[in-house]
């Protein structure tokens, strides 16, 4: 019993002595100073970011400002962290050396992250898109809500947030639908072969003229694009500003269809005839309803 008590005391002494040796009053002051330096550094980083945003960031493009703000924030915070470690008694030169090795190790371990980071810098430099643009990447289409160091975030039309890694974007085809101030809407349609194409053109042009959001110039375009199986294939193209484009797509197609129908222009659709062939007997057909069924 006495032996076990003595062993416990020796064990506790073994732990406490190095700790008490390290936790001198001076060390505590150093660590408190380091924490203070880190706190001041955090505040200084936030202040530097806010000052940059107010003085210079407002004159830059949104994504440039965003990248620069993050760079300034982490640079100031990094300096504060090194100063804090120095205040705590650690040798920064050793730390920096270790950081070099650590960076190398992390670099190998985080190739994707670094690739995304560099891709992001290229994307920002290229200025192919900016916050607020409507873009299409693969199957995703939506408004750019943020351009970050590692990814770009889209808000799709059905209000879903899509995160696209910068590396993917750099390798993909990006279609920027709102880069230019005006856009063309192409309506493909077909009319029956018997129709007067000049009259069809007049009806469609009048439809465009009646829509105030349809631009007078550039002029609407009417093209015969081919001869289909059951219709003369046409293309009717009208211009809208990018702000009214999406609202106009549905309306313009609807009005064009209504105007052609009102003008008696036939828009044919494929008819299917069932032929049983010459060898087999014709299908037996029984008429249901009509005069026989009603008895009249």
């Amino acid at each position, binding site marked *: 019993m006495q032996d076990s008590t003595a062993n416990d005391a020796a064990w506790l002494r073994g732990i406490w002595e190095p700790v008490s040796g390290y936790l001198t009053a001076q060390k505590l002051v150093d660590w408190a100073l380091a924490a203070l330096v880190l706190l001041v550094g955090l505040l200084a980083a936030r202040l530097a970011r806010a000052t940059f945003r107010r003085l210079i960031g407002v004159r830059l493009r949104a994504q440039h400002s965003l990248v620069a703000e993050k760079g300034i924030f982490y640079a100031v915070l990094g300096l504060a962290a090194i100063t804090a470690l120095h205040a705590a008694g650690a040798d920064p030169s050793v730390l920096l050396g270790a950081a070099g090795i650590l960076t190398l190790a992390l670099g190998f371990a985080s190739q994707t992250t670094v690739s995304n980071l560099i891709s992001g810098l290229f994307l920002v430099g290229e200025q192919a898109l900016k916050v607020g643009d409507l873009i299409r990447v693969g199957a995703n289409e939506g408004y750019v809500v943020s351009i970050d160091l590692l990814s770009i975030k889209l808000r799709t039309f059905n209000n879903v947030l899509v995160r696209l890694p910068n590396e993917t974007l750099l390798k993909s085809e990006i279609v920027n639908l709102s880069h230019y101030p005006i856009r063309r809407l192409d309506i493909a349609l077909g009319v029956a072969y018997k129709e007067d194409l000049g009259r069809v053109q007049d009806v469609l042009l009048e439809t465009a003229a009646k829509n105030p959001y349809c631009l007078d110039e550039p002029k609407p375009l009417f093209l015969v694009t081919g001869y289909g199986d059951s219709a003369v294939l046409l293309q009717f193209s009208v*211009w809208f500003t990018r702000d009214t484009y999406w609202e106009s797509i549905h309306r313009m197609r609807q009005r064009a269809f209504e105007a052609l129908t009102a003008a008696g222009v036939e828009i044919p659709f494929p008819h299917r005839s069932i032929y049983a062939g010459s060898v087999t007997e014709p299908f037996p057909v029984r008429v249901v309803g009509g005069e026989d069924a009603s008895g009249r």
Partner: protein
Amino acid sequence: MARESAGDLLDDVVAVDCPADPDAVEPRGELVRIAPATPRGVLAITPKLADRPVVARPETTFRLLPGAQIDLFVSTPVWLEVGIDEPPQTILDEASWRLSDTWFGAVTGPGELCYAIHTAARLRLENLPVLPHRAVTKVRLENRAGETVSLERLNLPFPHLSLYADAGGHLWTQVVSVRLEAADKLAEVDLGEGPPGEAREPKRVAGPRLVVHRNILVRAKSAMLD
């Protein structure tokens, strides 16, 4: 207040009705209810010019031979501003006739969104139907370039122009002078001090929507004719 138009561009019947009983408004179209700052105040309807430049395209090809100096009369629909006087507040600022949009400039930009009208580009005022809801602009064109210039479209800077009413109740804008100095089709634009002499006893009813700066005139120099 209910506004009604027959739908024809040259129709001069634009009825504005202010029934005392809101239930008397026929339930057609969209009903908008407005709460002013104070229940007092007098409702005022003021004609104004378009809130964007208007691009006038001659209905037929119009060529200006070297040295030609002509006056054109262009008629455009006015906007109606409905406001109250105490405190001065605008309730509504709407076109009496919604003109079609058009793009003035390259399809890839730069350019500006304007309204489009097709004008007969009358040389004589008596040939122009003077209608109460349309303002007449006198455009003085002078071709000082040494070659024939085809007038395809004319960009009228309405947001920079004032509107005047004459003794007969007809509406006029400031005179716009366009001088073609060189063959590169850049035009020098001057906005006149007031309405043309054809307007009898004119009174200014609305100032410009945008203050005219020198740089705007320089910009207009390259954008007036295309």
